[in-house]
């Protein structure tokens, strides 16, 4: 059995190294992006091997789904042959090598010091306080109760990225023309019709599971966002609809952060500590925050996908 596990790990590592090598150093851009998407698929398998099913779920939804969609769309917008970027001058070469060597040393030092961390981590302490958090899954407890401040800041970062993308102007210029006429692609609307029930059902299932098992707001939001991207692709006009409801759109985009802040401040009023919930309210509050966060994440991912503010 251990031989099999060893073989599996070796195959996985070899595959990851090969795909990363191809993604970074191959000539063709499209080939690089496809290799990179396959890299994320194998990364999900690695998370599974390392007993981190939560990360595997998030990686499957965000890495394989949303990042792949973003890269593929950007690729269609960039011209095929030329590379966009600055040529390094000759006098910059030594600096480049110096930077590379320095970064390499930094990585080795980081790995060394990480490896010598005191090994009994925080597992025991988290398990000890799990009963006081209102949920029974350790990762969700840390994410939304014990270290909720990190999660709040992460939502703020995402919102900042949306603001950056939207400040660049309206969605991108000339429309792309597909090779086949729309009548030759009857599959696209069918895809949207057949899959959309699942794009609603699966996030709900993931949110429900998140309180007691791997799941939760991030994968749920990402799946919903991917469903939104599919709607945009098949031109089922959700964004046209939202254009007339800009206020609603803005409110929903900020909903996750706003509810998070309200809960945190309310906790401060009730118990005197920022982000401390009374236990009897904790499950309800965590569920509410998770739902709002998932909705916001879904809309923010859709907003990224447009590469610009709609309705301008």
């Amino acid at each position, binding site marked *: 059995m251990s031989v099999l596990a060893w073989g599996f790990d070796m195959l996985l590592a070899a595959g990851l190294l090969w795909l990363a090598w191809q993604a970074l150093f191959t000539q063709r851009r499209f080939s690089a992006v496809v290799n990179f998407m396959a890299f994320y698929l194998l990364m999900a398998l690695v998370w599974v091997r390392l007993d981190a099913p939560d990360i595997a779920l998030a990686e499957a939804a965000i890495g394989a789904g949303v990042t792949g969609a973003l890269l593929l769309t950007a690729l269609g917008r960039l011209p095929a042959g030329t590379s966009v970027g600055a040529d390094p001058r000759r006098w910059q070469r030594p600096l480049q090598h110096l930077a590379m060597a320095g970064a390499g040393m930094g990585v080795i030092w980081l790995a060394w010091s990480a490896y010598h961390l005191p090994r009994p981590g925080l597992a025991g302490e988290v398990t000890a306080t799990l009963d006081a958090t209102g949920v029974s899954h350790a990762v969700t407890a840390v994410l939304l109760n014990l270290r909720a401040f990190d999660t709040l800041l992460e939502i703020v970062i995402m919102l900042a990225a949306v603001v950056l993308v939207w400040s660049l102007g309206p969605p991108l210029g000339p429309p792309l023309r597909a090779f086949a006429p729309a009548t030759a692609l*009857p*599959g696209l609307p069918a895809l949207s019709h057949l*899959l959309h029930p699942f794009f609603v059902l699966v996030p709900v299932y993931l949110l429900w599971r998140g309180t007691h098992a791997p799941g939760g707001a991030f994968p749920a939001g990402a799946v919903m966002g991917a469903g939104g991207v599919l709607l945009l692709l098949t031109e089922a006009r959700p964004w046209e609809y939202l254009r007339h409801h800009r206020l609603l759109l803005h409110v929903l985009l900020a909903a996750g952060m706003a509810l998070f802040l309200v809960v945190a401040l309310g906790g401060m009023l009730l118990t005197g500590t920022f982000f401390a919930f009374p236990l009897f309210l904790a499950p309800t509050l965590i569920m509410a925050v998770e739902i709002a966060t998932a909705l916001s994440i879904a809309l923010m991912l859709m907003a990224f996908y447009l590469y610009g503010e709609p309705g301008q």
Partner: protein
Amino acid sequence: MTEALHWLGYAFVAAGILFFLAGSLGLLRFPDVFTRLHALTKADNLGLGLICLGLALQASGPAEAVKYLLIWLLMLVASGIGATLIASTALACGLAPRQADRPPSTSTSQRPTEQ
């Protein structure tokens, strides 16, 4: 009864893996995009379906079994419709299917023709 179902499940999983191997043989040897679509959409999805069916037969409850079959259904929808999308786009792009009585069309295969 459950013993028999378990053995049937093993047989299905083994058959599924065989279909996967056949599909990748097709991916290796077939000459152009359109034929490779056949290898993937049919062989690989049949392989996945057999594996799902085999695991569903061994599942402990109906909920688990339904989840396995749901995965197969989603993959069937995705790759079946994806295959038509890719085939019609490739055709509109100007890639002609390779035919036996004609020399192979441009750029569908870099391999020398094997008679």
